[in-house]
């Protein structure tokens, strides 16, 4: 579009916002998601939008993009006021969004997913697969990615889906680009490449919104910060006025404790899980470790290092080619998920929003979905204990929803996450593996989730946390294993677990 004109205006100062959402109010039934929130976007700036899970960030974004209509308030674009936006209108105004749930079309190819939005906005009537490809290729190359353009999106990994969603937003000459947690599944270097591109876009005068629960990341790219709590605007100002601590404080209204706190595991007893020489060529090799009752074991490494595959093999999603798995002193063959569950192993997968949940079912149904066996009495389901389990998990995990009958689709991303956790805790496993348990979870809730994990461990569960969130590992783990190219390359325990040590181990 008119990139010349835009870069001109960014040079003259930051006075005029190119988009302003004013006094936005939005309610869903009885729940007030936004309570008169204002957000001003300046050309050439990245605006970090922060707040706890369910505070209304995604809702605000959907209102700006026309996916939802506000109850009141206005959206002013270049001085023109709109009572609400429509998806097509917003795209035509140059607003592009990377949605938290990606909003991709699984049955279409990567290339089609990337170009479809602009094809719609240009009001085309005809469509050519071949003609649309070069544009898609261009953006993939700009980002230095190796996405297979002809692959169906359904067959992609979560990370590649996220990258596809990013490409789709960047391909159009947008004036406003909104990124709702765009980096949850990306590797470190992919994030850096994205940030490099963000700089280029800023220089072109594009206004960006960046939502992330990784506060360092947000502070690294942002020039402006707006913080919401419970649908209300708490503070808005230049990024230089904030640091990690103050943001957490504004978000939660309290001081968040991220310091290390671990309980001693039962090293005196036999391990609950002993893995010996587990090998799956191409994924991981000669993996051996013990897990004791009461222990929280960290499994870290870069994305793609094989750390997730190890957990998937232990849960029967993948089948290891050789090696032994000993659960509670008994050699156990895990050929499928059923075997793993029967052996008392639980797994909270990486791609929760799509794999772990029935989105249109209620919280209650989801919580109970994998533990029906446990709630059977004389062959029949026992309604009373089911209700008790649901209430217990709902309250313990402090899921923010009107009640347990609310469909999971209506929850915020971070709250949906808690439902997955509740589901696995309801099953009372002996060994629980969690893959990125706090990805997309706000700092306050993260602390709460880690507290829950500590409590479960103290009650005798053996826990494996797969994560690349270093502060989190330091905060809860008794031991940390680093996986590199499918092998365990380092082990840290006790006081050796420091952020510096783990960072070094991962990069070594």
């Amino acid at each position, binding site marked *: 579009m008119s990139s010349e004109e835009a870069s001109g205006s960014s040079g003259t100062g930051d006075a005029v916002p190119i988009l302003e959402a004013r006094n936005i109010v939005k309610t869903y039934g009885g729940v007030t998601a936004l309570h008169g929130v204002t957000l001003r976007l300046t050309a050439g700036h990245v605006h970090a939008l922060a707040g706890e899970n369910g505070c209304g960030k995604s809702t605000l974004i959907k209102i700006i993009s026309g996916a939802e209509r506000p109850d009141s308030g206005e959206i002013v674009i270049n001085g023109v006021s709109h009572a609400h936006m429509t*998806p097509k209108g917003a795209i035509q105004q140059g607003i592009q*969004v990377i949605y938290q749930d990606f909003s991709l079309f699984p*049955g*279409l190819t990567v290339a089609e997913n990337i170009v479809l939005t602009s094809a719609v906005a240009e009001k085309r009537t005809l469509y050519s697969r071949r003609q649309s490809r070069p544009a898609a290729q261009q953006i993939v190359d700009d980002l230095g990615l190796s996405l297979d353009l002809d692959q169906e999106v359904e067959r992609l990994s979560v990370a590649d889906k996220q990258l596809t969603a990013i490409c789709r937003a960047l391909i159009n000459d947008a004036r406003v680009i909104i990124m709702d947690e765009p980096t949850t599944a990306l590797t470190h*270097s992919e994030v850096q490449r994205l940030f490099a591109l963000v700089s280029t876009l800023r220089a072109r005068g594009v206004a960006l919104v960046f939502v992330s629960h990784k506060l360092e990341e947000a502070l690294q790219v942002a020039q402006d910060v707006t913080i919401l709590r419970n649908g209300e605007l708490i503070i808005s100002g230049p990024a230089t006025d904030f640091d990690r601590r103050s943001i957490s404080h504004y978000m939660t209204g309290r001081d968040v404790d991220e310091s290390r706190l671990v309980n001693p595991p039962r090293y005196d007893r036999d391990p609950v899980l002993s893995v010996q020489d587990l090998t799956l060529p191409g994924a991981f090799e000669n993996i051996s470790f013990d897990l004791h009752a009461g222990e929280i074991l960290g499994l870290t490494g870069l994305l793609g290092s094989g750390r997730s595959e190890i957990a998937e093999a232990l849960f029967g999603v993948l089948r290891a080619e050789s090696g032994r798995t000993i659960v509670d002193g008994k050699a156990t063959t895990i050929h499928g998920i059923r075997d793993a569950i029967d052996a008392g192993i639980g797994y909270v997968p990486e791609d929760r929003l799509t794999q772990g949940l029935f989105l249109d079912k209620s919280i209650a149904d989801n919580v109970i979905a994998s533990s029906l066996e446990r709630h059977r009495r004389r062959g029949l389901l026992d309604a009373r204990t089911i209700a008790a389990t649901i209430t217990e998990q709902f309250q313990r995990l402090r899921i923010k929803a009107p009640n347990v009958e609310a469909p999971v689709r209506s929850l915020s991303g971070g709250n949906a996450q808690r439902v997955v956790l509740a589901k696995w805790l309801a099953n009372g496993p002996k060994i629980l593996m969690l893959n990125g348990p706090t990805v997309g979870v706000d700092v306050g809730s993260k602390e709460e989730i880690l507290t829950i994990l500590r409590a479960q461990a103290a009650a005798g569960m053996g826990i494996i946390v797969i994560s690349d969130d270093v502060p989190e590992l330091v905060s809860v783990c008794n031991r940390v294993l680093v996986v590199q*190219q499918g092998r365990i390359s380092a082990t840290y325990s006790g006081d050796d677990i420091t952020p510096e040590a783990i960072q070094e181990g991962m990069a070594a």
Partner: protein
Amino acid sequence: MSATGTSRLAALRGSNNEGVLALILVVLVIAMTIVNSDFLSAGTLFAILRSSIVPTVLALGVLIVIISGGIDVSFPAIAIFSAYTTVVLMRGSGIDAGVVLVLVVSLVIGALLGLVNGGLIARFKLPTLIVTLGTQGIFKGILIAYVGSRYIAELPLGMRMFSTQSLLTVPAGGENTSLHVLVVPAIVLCLLVNFLLRNTMFGRGVYAIGNDTEAARRVGFSVMRIQVILYVVAGVLAAFGGVLHVTLTRSANPQDLLGTELDTIAAVVLGGASIFGGRGSVLGTMLGVLLIQVINNSLILMGIPSAWQRTAVGLLLVIGVGVQAISARRSSRRVFAHREVVAPA
């Protein structure tokens, strides 16, 4: 690396398993030829093609609806309603109508009935199966009660003139056997719908809605408009199928076609269209129709009672859906590679 090998194999298999379907078809034909050497002949081939004309055209409409994530059971009612009403109207007006008039009248009727479906579905966001079950009953009722229930053998010129025309005739075992001319419009419609689905933004919208309606709305598709239009198109295709049916059977019977939903939907699903929406192709649908016709034909040749044909088609539908469910699970299993082996700087 076998990457190119596997991708070539994948290309052969087709994005909706069209290759697999074609293979099954070939194997079946070979098997039937071994059982009965008369099977592989121009006569059988032409007979199968002729019997595929109407199901193919009807299946095209069903295909569009299924790709959009819906299901339509009212299309046989629309088909016979449009064709029969046209015959009645032409007789009533005393015009011996030509092809153009017959087609215009019947297709407009089909479009209007499709509009009823589309309007109800898009406006009130009702489940498509329920809506079309309802309208199916309504269309049938109106047809019998207000239009007529009589069997009509005198057709307008536009239908009559094509009833017994052949495209080509070949000598086979002493007597001649010929291919019916109406395979031509069926093929033309296949090409048109293929173009519509693959090369127009409307077609992309149909796939997008079937994949994820909310995501389709978010990228700017007008979901309501696309839904209305697609049911209108499905209605037009059904009407066309109805006219072809009346022409081929050389009579208009208001009870015809009703009850053929299962065969058509089975053909579309066997042809790789996903019952969950978002997937499907014209080529697959054509192969699916052919497969069902070949099977029906084989069963007749082997002297198996016709009741079993229904069972066979039902079984095929279940197999088709089962294969989809299994391959969906299979595809979620992935290949792993060390995505990031270099350490970040």
